[in-house]
């Protein structure tokens, strides 16, 4: 042991250690005395770490402010808390070791911010500015709250990762089933139904129920998790497509002749004769619309909440048998034999947009859940992924030996397509990235050609309908791990379902609001605004919002003579005029500058360019 500490060191470290060793077990009502010693000495490592994690208030308050991204109007409250730390202590005398609200990471908050700050606003009055500030403050506050509540999303998505160099596509279902827990392994199953032809299938929105219809008339619905059969019937007619309506209690079946609606007991509730020879069905859950594409070339929207046909649109492109919906904006995508994909809304008689995708006909279309990417496969054996954010250009293209059929996106952006009796799944880098078609993520071979594909919502499960029946296969990382219990709860009871149904009906979105950019609805209708303004001016005879003409102030000592008043008026007018000219000149310059680069430098070889 050292007898005396060296002059250079202020505290012998060993002694400190001993102190910490000898310390009594701390009682929770006792005050933490360590910080006071920590102020003088380097302090025990535990405490230091603590401080790094969460800056303590009194010392580095500015760091705290930086880490929190708020400049909230709570300012007057805080200093009061500061002034008397005595009052902070509760009855037990214990002090909050982490005072103040918890810090939130900026990126997470940014995710919830919706105000587009890139657009610069024209100069605004003080009153307007204060309103804008309030709006911004509110946005920040709500986004912080939302970011904080992300903590409650406890589940994490699964994934499959090959050991270095191993191709995940080589991993077969058996291996996955062996690796996962029993509950998940039970989700992989085969229904061997060879009798009634190729099957189409559909999962309910909660992902709990599965309905499938074979071409030879076999229709069944079951709770696929418990394998409890709800109903099983043969409609004695070809079944083209099958789809759950808003809940698992109703089931729409596109039969050879007409569209039929069954309940979960298999009782036929409706036969909709206005929708005849339907080939494909889509259900828009927030609008309660059942979209049907028919052989006669009509796209029909049926409002299932009131049983009325909202719109019947003639696509003027022959037989329609390729349809999918964009879950982001509820626009229906139809594929045609001339290689185009047309986007439809019930409010418009013409397509919202038409995209030329393939040289041959379009075989199938799928849109991902964020509405960003569209996968199309054509008869030219190509599989393309389009960007739907305004450009409509293909992001990636691959030629497949047999083309791809029935592509489908999962909730987390995995893309599946069937090729003959093989199912290929491609994955992207993250959730918001398009699936890369370089390498399949998983492949699986079935006992017959694929006829229907859908990822089960909120589960890592892919349902495949084929000639040999139904296969439910495990695809790690396919489903969204966290579900919204109020929106689509896989575990909901009957009562909860009924309650949800009422709420959903109350919140039903009118069909005419379907448009390409749903955020455009939150914008002011400029055309009618201007029209209204014009009408007002006509009615009043003057423009109430026009800038008042300049009126010179009266001045004294003979400077307010008529001549000088006129002169002053002229001055202001000239100034305004000059401003205008300057602005127009600037605009011209901008235009020229913009036009120039496209022209580039003329080259002598340009004449040979066609």
């Amino acid at each position, binding site marked *: 042991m050292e007898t005396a500490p060296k002059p250079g060191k202020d505290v012998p470290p060993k002694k400190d250690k001993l102190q910490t060793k000898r310390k009594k077990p701390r*009682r929770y*009502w006792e005050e933490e005395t360590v910080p006071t010693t920590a102020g003088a000495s380097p302090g025990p490592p535990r405490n230091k770490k603590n401080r790094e994690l969460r800056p303590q208030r009194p010392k580095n308050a500015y760091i705290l402010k930086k880490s929190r991204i708020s400049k909230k109007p709570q300012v007057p409250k805080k200093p*009061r808390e500061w002034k008397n730390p005595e009052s902070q202590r509760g*009855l*037990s*005398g214990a002090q909050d070791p982490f005072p103040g609200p918890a810090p939130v990471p900026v990126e997470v908050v940014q995710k919830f911010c*919706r*105000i587009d700050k890139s*657009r610069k*606003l024209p100069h*605004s009055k003080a009153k*307007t500015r204060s*309103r*804008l500030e309030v709006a911004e403050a*509110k946005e920040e506050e*709500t986004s912080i*709250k*939302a970011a904080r509540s992300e903590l409650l999303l406890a589940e994490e998505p699964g994934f499959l990762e090959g050991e270095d160099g191993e*191709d995940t596509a080589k991993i*077969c279902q*058996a291996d996955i089933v062996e690796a996962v827990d029993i509950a998940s392994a039970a989700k992989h199953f085969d229904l061997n139904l060879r009798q009634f032809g190729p099957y189409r299938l559909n999962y309910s929105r909660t992902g709990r129920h599965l309905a499938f219809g074979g071409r030879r008339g076999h229709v069944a619905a079951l709770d696929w998790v418990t394998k409890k059969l709800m109903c099983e019937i043969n409609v004695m007619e070809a079944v083209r497509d099958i789809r759950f309506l808003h809940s698992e209690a109703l089931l729409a079946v596109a039969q050879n002749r007409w569209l039929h609606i069954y309940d979960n007991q298999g009782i036929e509730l409706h036969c909709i004769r206005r929708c005849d020879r339907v080939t494909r069905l889509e259900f828009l859950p927030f609008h309660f619309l059942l979209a049907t594409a028919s052989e006669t070339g009509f796209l029909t929207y049926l409002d299932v909440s009131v049983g009325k046909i909202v719109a019947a649109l003639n696509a003027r492109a022959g037989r329609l048998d390729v349809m999918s919906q964009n879950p982001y904006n509820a626009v229906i995508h139809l594929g045609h034999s*001339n*290689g185009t994909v047309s986007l439809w809304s019930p409010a*418009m008689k*013409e397509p*919202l*947009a038409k*995209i*030329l*995708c*393939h*040289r*041959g*006909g379009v075989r199938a279309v799928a849109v991902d859940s964020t509405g960003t990417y569209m996968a199309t496969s054509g*008869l030219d054996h190509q*599989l393309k992924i389009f960007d739907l954010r305004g450009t*409509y*250009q293909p992001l990636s293209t*691959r*030629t*497949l030996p*047999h083309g791809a059929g029935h592509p489908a996106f999962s909730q987390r952006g995995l893309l599946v397509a069937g*090729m003959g009796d*093989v199912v*290929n799944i491609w994955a992207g880098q993250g959730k918001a990235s398009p699936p890369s078609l370089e*390498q*399949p993520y998983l*492949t*699986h*071979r079935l006992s*017959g*050609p694929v006829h229907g594909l859908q990822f089960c919502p909120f589960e890592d499960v892919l349902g495949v309908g084929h000639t040999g029946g139904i296969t439910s296969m495990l695809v790690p990382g396919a489903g969204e791990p966290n579900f919204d219990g109020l*929106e689509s709860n896989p575990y909901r009871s009957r009562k909860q379902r009924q309650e949800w149904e009422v709420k959903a009906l109350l919140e039903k979105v009118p069909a*005419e609001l379907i448009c390409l950019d749903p955020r455009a609805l*939150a*914008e*002011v*209708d400029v*055309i*009618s605004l201007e029209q209204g303004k014009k009408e007002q001016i006509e009615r009043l005879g003057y423009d109430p919002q026009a800038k008042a003409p300049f009126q010179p102030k009266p001045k004294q000592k003979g400077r307010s003579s008529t001549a000088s008043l006129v002169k002053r008026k002229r001055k202001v007018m000239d100034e305004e005029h000059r401003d205008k000219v300057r602005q127009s000149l600037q605009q011209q310059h901008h235009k020229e500058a913009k036009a120039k680069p496209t022209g580039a430098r003329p080259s002598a070889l340009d004449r040979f360019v066609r």
Partner: protein
Amino acid sequence: MTANRLAESLLALSQQEELADLPKDYLLSESEDEGDNDGERKHQKLLEAISSLDGKNRRKLAERSEASLKVSEFNVSSEGSGEKLVLADLLEPVKTSSSLATVKKQLSRVKSKKTVELPLNKEEIERIHREVAFNKTAQVLSKWDPVVLKNRQAEQLVFPLEKEEPAIAPIEHVLSGWKARTPLEQEIFNLLHKNKQPVTDPLLTPVEKASLRAMSLEEAKMRRAELQRARALQSYYEAKARREKKIKSKKYHKVVKKGKAKKALKEFEQLRKVNPAAALEELEKIEKARMMERMSLKHQNSGKWAKSKAIMAKYDLEARQAMQEQLSKNKELTQKLQVASESEEEEGGTEDVEELLVPDVVNEVQMNADGPNPWMLRSCTSDTKEAATQEDPEQLPELEAHGVSESEGEERPVAEEEILLREFEERRSLRKRSELSQDAEPAGSQETKDSGSQEVLSELRVLSQKLKENHQSRKQKASSEGTIPQVQREEPAPEEEEPLLLQRPERVQTLEELEELGKEECFQNKELPRPVLEGQQSERTPNNRPDAPKEKKKKEQMIDLQNLLTTQSPSVKSLAVPTIEELEDEEERNHRQMIKEAFAGDDVIRDFLKEKREAVEASKPKDVDLTLPGWGEWGGVGLKPSAKKRRRCPVVLLSRFLIKAPEGPPRKDKNLPNVIINEKRNIHAAAHQVRVLPYPFTHHWQFERTIQTPIGSTWNTQRAFQKLTTPKVVTKPGHIINPIKAEDVGYRSSSRSDLSVIQRNPKRITTRHKKQLKKCSVD
């Protein structure tokens, strides 16, 4: 005075005369002493004097340029002096006298006194009064400005107005400053003090403190956990009891009752051994219960159930039995008490025997009768099959020769268990073929040939067992040799698991590997699936190198639609290549598609471009033609409007009758060749949009920014949603809302405040007032 002046001037003159001889420099320097004005004047005089010396007009009188009444007879005028003659000067004697001073004073007073102004007219006065009053009131009211502003900007107003609660002090502080006054309070405090209950700071009794000190955090946690566990157990037990109570099954209750009775008996037995006295009491109790039951006339076949059974008994054997049981029970009950213990024991014994017996019997039955148990059967069959396989090897070669030739290449190096495997497959496929004729399933020939995907399960089992045996041995072999191709190593493992699903991928793999090895074996066999080859070729041909430049090119020539669609895209690699197993109609369809593909090509693009052009034309705003044929000229069929009407205006370069439509904004799909975006407005959606800008906003962008954040509970947390949707004004039902008073916002009472405000800045008021007065007076 004038005399004086004259004398002075003369004197000066004489001086100047003397000075005139002197050089001019001197003169200037001299004159500098006096003021400039004086100097000038004097200079003038000097000049005059000098000129008068000339002699010609020595006496030049002062000229009079205007008519004047004052004509001095002595030719003396006051012109030169430039000073006014003051009355006082005249009165003033040469030497001052005291008597005249008073007069002078009076004179000055008279002179200083102004005339009294006319009083302002009534209207003026009233206006001033109004103005002053207005200012005063404005001043008084201005104190409300901050309040009004605050209320306008407030997110929420709560009525009736409540005075702000003072900051909530901690309870200790409140208690320390508080004293018991009423007798009740005093009594309470006495009690508290007696029990040493602390009333201030840490509100813990000494006992509590001690207990806290006694128990560490861990202990407390443990105890709490224990308590929790006990509570949970209790709740479980309660729940169980509740559930059991609800069970309606009679059988269950019967069993429970029996069990209870048995238990009671057992206990009674024990009690008899331990404590005979208590046992006796117990016995009595039991006896009493029996008597009660006996008295109750139960089991008499007189109840509802018994009556119904009695009706049924005629036809139903079970019902009859149940009735008899009941009767027997009745008899047993009504019998006089005998020695029951022995019979019970006997019964128990028999039961035991039965229990012992039953399993054997059951087993026997199962062994004998339960034939169709697949597991048992399988094991049996597997044995036989194994035996069969042992016999098989002799037949192997011929089967192989007869079998599929595709695997010839691989089979040579393959180990013997591999051969065995193949042999089984062959057999399976053979069987398959024979079955195929009967099978209604339209299974493709490829599939059946390639591998039996629908093999019999039992066979599989055999195979797997066989493989398991072989696998172990081969593993050892593999470790020793290490050069065995991967094919062998990989194959058996999945085969064990799911032979059904994985047969095909394996096969493909083997083929691939063979090709990679570069063995020059000719694949004459026609059974090799063509698509597989194609797929692999396409896999190889588009090498990855030219990928990148192609991409670049694409970016450069984004505009060219032709390029966009015709660019060669690399084909995808896929491990599993689909087998072509097509139905008739599907094949037909594919044929049609092929034809379409062949002919579609360019047409698609041209059609699309044409369509787009048409759409663009249709969406362009149309010019308005106002020409009226025949107006102002000859009309009739086949006449064109005159050249005058068609003539273009020199300035606008347009006909006077043609109104050109303004050019609209550029189309959204201007730079997107493969897209037609509809530019039409969605009127139905527009009906739901905001069309009037609310008050403080001057530009729609400003307003849009304030409504961009959603306020619904779907997009927000519950708290945020509540905060975003708080009502602007909250009122309490049943409360009178009084107008705001000065005290409410921290001012003094209103009557005083008016004064105080004025007194606080009296200066401002007075100056303004003065200004007003002045203005009026000027008017």
